C-alpha cells in the first residue's frame, strides 16, 4: 500500500513517502564508491597477523626469525596499550579483558598473536608464515551447555565458571502450571557469520601537522570507535579522527571495536608511515566475530482453545571468549528475556538466561539481534500449541496477539508498543498466501513425491532504543539526543552532517528527502556528510534500526530551525513582519511577493550589505538535537508466510511462495524499505536453511571458506510478495519507525514451521536451524524407525 499521507511538499515527488531512486547508486553501481581498501596513501604498508591456530592454549613462546625482527610486533612491544573492556552494569556481570595482541593465553582460533608489516600483503603473509608459536594446548570450551556444568575447562580462570551473566525474570509463573496444554521442547539456532560483501578494513596514518591519528575503518559507529580507541590507546579523543568511507554492508559486524584497529593505530605511530589491514574472507569466517548461537529449553502453557497461559524458558547464548565493545557479551542473552513474549498477551512468564563464555570468537548483535532466535523459538512452539489444540496455526496467533484497541500496549516484560494492528497483518498474510488453497493441495498430495507445507510467523521489532532502554544495560554506549547540523550554502544548496552512517541503507537519499520535506530544496542540491568524526556531530552511529527515527528526526529538527532563520531573513528582504511570511516550497512568501532560499542564502553570505542592522546574527548554519516524544523505541512488525516443498528422501527444501505483510509506520522511501526487506529476507533464509559455523571438540571452526559456509545466492531467494500497512508511530517525527532489521527476523521461523507442516504427517519435527538436507533426512529416518518399532 502506498503511503497516502499528505505532507506539505509531497507534491514535488521528493519528500517523505516518495519512491525516489537512491542518489548514492550512481556512484556505487558504477564501481566508483570508495571503500577502505580503495584508499591509497604514500608510503602505505600492509599488515598480516599471526593468529592462534588453537582455540585454547598457553603461550610459551613466539619465535620470530632474525631477519624479520623489526617487522614483527607482539604484545611485549605494545607498552601502555590497554585491553578492550566492554563492561555491563547488570548485577553479576563478569568482566573479560581482551588483549589486542594475545598475552599469556589464546582463547579462540584466530586470536591475534603477532602483527607483521611489509610493503605488500603477500610479503606480510610470508613473514607471518615464518613466525612459529610454542603453544601448550588446553581443553577447549566449545559447547555452551557443557560450559555451564561444573568441572568444565575455564576460558577465564579467575571467574571460577564460564558465565558472563545470568539473569532471571518472572511474573507469576505458578499461575500457568495447571494449564491443560503444556508443550516443552529444546530449540537451537546455529552459530553464524554475518558476511557483509565488504569485510572489515583499516588504514591508519598519523598527521604530524594536526598531531592527529587518522583511522580509516569500515565501521558503522565511527564516534564509538573513536571513544574505544582513545580508551585503549590512552589518548585524548581530540587526537583521533575516525573516517568511515563507503561501507559495503554492516549488519552489526562493523559495530565492534577491533583489536586490529587498536594495533594498526599503535603501529602507524611506531613506524611513521601509513599501514593497512584488509580482512580476508577466511579471517572473517574464522577469527572476527560470530552471531546467533542460541539454545532454548522452553515450555508453553495454554488453554484448550489455544489461549496462552504462560511461557517458561531457559535460554543460553554462546557469547564467545570476550565481551565485545561496545555491546558487551550479555546484550544478546539478556535481551532474550525481555523480548521473548513479543506481541503476545499472557499472564505468566519466567525466563532465565545465561551468557556463556567459550573458546570461540566474540558474538555480536547481527541484524535482528536476539529477535531472530526468539522468534524462531516462540513461533515454532506456537505451532505445537496449535497442534495440541487442534487449531490452525493462524488461529492461535490471532487469539493471543495484542489487539489494535489495546494500543499503546505494555506487554508482560513492560515493553511499550507504540502502535500497530498485529492481527490485521496476520490475517492479510494468511489471505495472501491462500491458506485454504494450500490445505486443499496438501490433501491431494504431490505427484513428484515431495510434501508441501505452509508456515507463518510474526514478530515485533523494537527500534531506535533510547536512553531509558540502554541506561539499564550500563554498557559503554548509551544513546542520548541525536544531533544533525544543517547549513545553507551561499548558492542555496544544503549540507547536512549526521553522526550515523550509511552502509547500504540509502541514507544519502532518505535524509535528503526528510530535509526536502522541511525546506523544499531539490534533493539534487542536498549533500549528506557522514562517516567522519571530524565532520559530523557525535552519535552512537547506525545500529538497532535507529537512523531514520533518530537522524531523520534530527535532520527535520535542524531543518526546521534553519527554515525559521531563513524565514526571518526573508521577511526582512520582503520588508514584512516575520509573523506574516511563511516558508513554502523553498521560498519565503508574503502577501506582496516571495524570495527564494537561494536568494536568502546569497544575501546572507555574499551581500550582507543588503540586510538591515537588526537582522538575527545566528546565520544559516544550525545544529539541533532530537529525541522522540518517548524514547522506549518504535515497534514495527510483520507477518511472514512461506510455502515450501520438501523432498523427504533427499532433504531438499524449495520455497514456493513467500509473503510479507509489513508495518513500519510512515515510510520515508518505500522503495528503500522494500530493498531492506528483501535483503533481510535473504539473510533470514540463510539462517533458516544454509548458514552454520560448526566447531569440533578442540574448538576448531570447520567452515573456513565460502565453499563450506553457505550463503544464499540469487537462486535461493524467492521473489517475495510484499504488502505494506502503515500505522504511524505517535512518538516520532512524521510517524516513522525503524525498519532495518525485520526482514531477517521472521524467515527462519516461517520456513521451519512450513517444513514441519509438510513433514508432520510423517512424524517429523525439526527444532534446529539451519534445516539442512542431512537434518531433514536424519529426522525422517528416525521417524520411520520409530513408526516401525511402534507397529
Amino acid at each position, binding site marked *: 500500500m502506498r503511503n497516502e499521507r499528505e505532507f506539505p511538499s509531497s507534491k514535488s515527488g521528493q519528500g517523505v513517502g516518495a519512491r525516489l531512486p537512491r542518489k548514492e547508486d550512481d556512484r556505487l553501481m558504477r564501481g566508483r564508491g570508495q571503500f577502505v581498501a580503495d584508499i591509497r596513501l604514500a608510503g602505505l604498508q600492509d599488515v598480516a597477523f599471526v593468529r592462534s591456530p588453537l582455540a585454547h592454549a598457553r603461550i610459551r613462546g613466539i619465535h620470530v626469525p632474525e631477519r624479520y625482527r623489526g617487522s614483527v610486533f607482539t604484545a611485549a612491544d605494545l607498552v601502555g596499550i590497554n585491553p578492550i573492556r566492554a563492561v555491563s552494569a547488570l548485577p553479576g556481570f563478569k568482566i573479560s579483558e581482551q588483549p589486542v595482541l594475545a598475552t599469556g593465553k589464546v582463547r579462540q582460533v584466530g586470536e591475534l598473536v603477532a602483527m607483521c608489516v611489509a610493503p605488500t600483503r*603477500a610479503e606480510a*603473509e610470508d613473514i607471518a608464515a615464518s613466525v612459529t608459536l610454542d603453544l601448550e594446548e588446553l581443553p577447549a570450551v566449545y559447547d555452551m551447555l557443557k560450559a555451564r556444568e561444573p568441572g568444565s575447562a575455564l576460558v577465564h580462570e579467575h571467574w571460577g565458571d564460564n558465565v558472563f551473566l545470568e539473569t532471571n525474570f518472572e511474573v507469576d509463573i505458578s499461575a500457568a502450571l495447571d494449564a491443560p496444554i503444556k508443550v516443552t521442547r529444546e530449540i537451537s539456532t546455529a552459530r553464524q557469520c554475518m558476511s557483509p560483501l565488504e569485510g572489515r578494513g583499516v588504514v591508519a596514518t598519523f598527521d604530524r601537522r594536526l598531531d592527529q591519528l587518522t583511522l580509516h575503518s569500515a565501521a558503522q559507529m565511527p564516534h564509538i570507535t573513536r571513544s574505544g580507541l582513545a580508551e585503549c590507546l590512552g589518548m585524548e579523543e581530540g587526537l583521533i579522527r575516525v573516517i568511515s568511507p563507503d561501507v559495503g554492508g554492516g549488519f552489526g559486524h562493523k559495530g565492534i571495536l577491533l583489536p586490529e584497529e587498536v594495533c594498526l593505530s599503535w603501529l602507524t605511530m611506531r613506524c611513521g608511515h601509513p599501514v593497512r589491514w584488509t580482512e580476508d574472507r577466511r579471517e572473517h569466517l574464522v577469527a572476527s566475530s560470530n552471531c546467533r548461537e542460541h539454545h532454548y529449553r522452553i515450555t508453553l502453557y495454554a488453554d484448550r482453545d489455544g489461549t496462552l497461559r504462560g511461557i517458561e524458558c531457559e535460554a543460553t547464548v554462546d557469547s564467545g571468549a570476550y565481551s565485545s565493545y561496545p555491546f558487551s557479551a550479555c546484550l544478546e542473552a539478556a535481551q532474550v528475556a525481555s523480548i521473548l513474549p513479543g506481541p503476545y498477551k499472557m499472564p505468566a512468564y519466567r525466563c532465565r538466561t545465561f551468557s556463556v563464555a567459550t573458546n570461540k570468537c566474540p558474538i555480536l548483535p547481527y541484524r535482528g539481534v536476539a529477535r531472530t532466535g526468539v522468534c524462531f523459538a516462540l513461533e515454532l512452539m506456537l505451532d505445537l500449541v496449535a497442534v495440541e489444540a487442534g487449531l490452525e496455526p493462524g488461529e492461535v496467533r490471532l487469539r493471543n496477539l495484542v489487539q489494535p484497541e489495546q494500543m499503546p500496549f505494555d506487554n508482560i516484560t513492560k515493553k511499550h508498543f507504540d502502535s500497530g494492528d498485529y492481527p490485521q497483518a496476520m490475517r492479510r498474510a494468511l489471505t495472501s498466501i491462500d491458506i485454504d488453497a494450500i490445505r486443499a493441495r496438501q490433501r491431494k498430495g504431490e505427484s513428484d513425491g515431495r510434501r508441501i507445507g505452509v508456515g507463518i510467523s510474526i514478530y515485533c521489532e523494537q527500534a531506535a532504543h533510547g536512553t531509558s532502554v540502554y541506561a539499564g544495560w550500563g554498557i559503554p554506549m548509551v544513546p542520548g539526543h541525536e544531533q544533525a547540523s544543517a547549513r545553507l550554502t551561499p548558492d542555496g544548496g544544503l549540507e547536512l552532517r549526521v553522526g550515523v552512517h550509511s552502509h547500504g541503507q540509502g541514507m544519502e537519499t532518505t535524509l535528503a528527502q526528510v530535509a526536502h520535506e522541511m525546506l523544499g530544496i531539490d534533493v539534487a542540491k542536498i549533500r549528506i556528510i557522514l562517516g567522519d568524526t571530524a565532520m559530523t556531530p557525535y552519535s552512537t552511529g547506525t545500529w538497532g534500526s535507529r537512523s531514520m527515527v533518530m537522524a531523520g528526526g534530527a535532520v527535520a529538527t535542524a531543518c526546521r530551525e534553519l527554515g525559521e532563520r531563513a524565514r526571518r531573513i526573508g521577511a526582512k528582504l520582503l520588508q514584512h513582519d516575520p509573523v506574516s511570511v511563511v516558508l513554502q516550497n523553498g521560498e519565503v512568501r508574503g502577501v506582496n511577493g516571495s524570495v527564494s532560499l537561494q536568494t536568502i542564502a546569497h544575501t546572507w553570505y555574499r551581500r550582507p550589505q543588503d540586510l538591515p542592522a537588526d537582522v538575527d546574527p545566528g546565520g544559516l548554519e544550525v545544529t539541533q538535537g532530537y529525541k522522540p516524544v518517548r524514547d522506549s523505541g518504535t515497534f514495527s512488525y510483520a507477518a511472514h508466510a512461506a510455502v515450501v516443498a520438501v523432498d523427504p528422501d533427499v532433504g531438499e527444501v524449495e520455497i514456493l511462495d513467500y509473503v510479507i505483510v509489513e508495518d513500519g509506520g510512515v515510510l520515508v522511501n518505500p522503495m528503500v524499505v522494500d530493498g531492506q526487506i528483501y535483503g533481510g529476507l535473504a539473510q533470514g533464509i540463510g539462517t533458516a536453511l544454509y548458514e552454520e559455523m560448526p566447531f569440533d571438540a578442540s574448538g576448531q571452526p570447520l567452515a573456513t571458506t565460502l565453499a563450506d559456509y553457505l550463503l544464499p545466492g540469487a537462486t535461493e531467494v524467492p521473489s517475495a510478495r510484499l504488502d505494506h500497512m502503515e500505522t504511524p508511530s505517535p512518538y516520532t517525527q512524521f510517524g516513522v519507525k525503524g525498519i532495518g532489521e525485520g526482514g531477517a527476523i521472521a524467515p527462519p521461523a516461517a520456513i521451519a514451521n512450513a517444513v514441519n507442516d509438510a513433514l508432520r504427517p510423517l512424524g517429523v519435527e525439526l527444532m534446529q536451524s539451519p534445516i539442512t538436507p542431512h537434518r531433514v533426512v536424519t529426522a525422517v529416518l528416525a521417524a520411520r524407525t520409530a513408526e516401525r518399532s511402534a507397529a
Partner: protein
Amino acid sequence: MKPAPFGYERPRDLNSALSMLAAAGGSAKVIAGGQSLGPMLNLRLVQPELVVDISGLAELKQAELRDGELVLGALVTHADIEDGRTADVTRGAMRGVAANIAYRAVRNRGTIGGSLSHADPAADWISALAALGARVALRSLAGARVMAIEAFVVGALESALHAGEIVEAVHVPPRPVSAHWGYAKSCRKTGEFAHAIGAVLVDPARASARVVIGAIDTVPIVLTDAAELFGGRVAADYKQRFDARVADALLAKAGISDAAERHIHVSVLKRAVHEAAA
C-alpha cells in the same frame, strides 16, 4: 589470503611444458583455468615452487572425432561443451552435465582436463565421464598412456598422474541410440559442489548398465556392470527393478557409516535411474 611465492612459466607448446614439469621434479603445479588451483594457492594449501600455465597450448584446445570417439583436448572448457562448441557423441548427456557445473563464470574458465586432474570427488566430470565409459589420455616426456576414468581417480584429490605428467585429452565413446542416460545431483545451493551424484547409462537392448555413485568422501563407486542394482539383470523394466538396498550396501561397504548420508545418495541415484527411464 595471498599465495606463497612461486615461479611462473607459460610455455607455448606441449613439449616445453612437459620439459618444465620434468625439470621441476614434482615441485611444480599445472594451472589451466585456475578455478580450483587458484583458491588453493591463495589459501596456501599448495605451495609449489613453479606454476606451469598451460592455457597457451593450442594443441590442448582441440576437439575432434577420431575413430568414432570424441577426443576433447584437456583445455576444452565446461562452457565450450555447454554451448555446443564441441562435437557431441553423447546425445546431449555431456552438455547437460556441463551446464550445471558450478556457475557460468567458473564454466567459462574451468577446463575438463583441470577438473579431472584435480580429482575432487564432488566434481561432476569424474562421475559423469566414468558412467559414459570415457578414458583419459596422459602424456609426459616419457610417453603417453590411456586409462579408464575410474582407474585414473585413485582417491580424494588424488589421481594416477605421475610427476611430470599431464592430462592431454579425454576420449568419449559414442552413446548408443538404445542407451538411456540419467544424471542427478543434490547441491545445498545452485552452483555449489554436490553432496550426492548419481550417474547411470542403461542400455536395456544390450542388457548393460554403467552406474556411478559420486560425491562421496572418497573415489566414486563405479559399477561397470550394474546388473546387481537391478535384481541381477538389466531389462526394459529396470526402473521398477532398482534395488535401493543393494545401493545402500555398496555405500556402507565404501565406508559411509551415516544412514542419512547413505539414504540421500541412494535417493539421488534413484532420481538418475528415473530420469534415464523417463
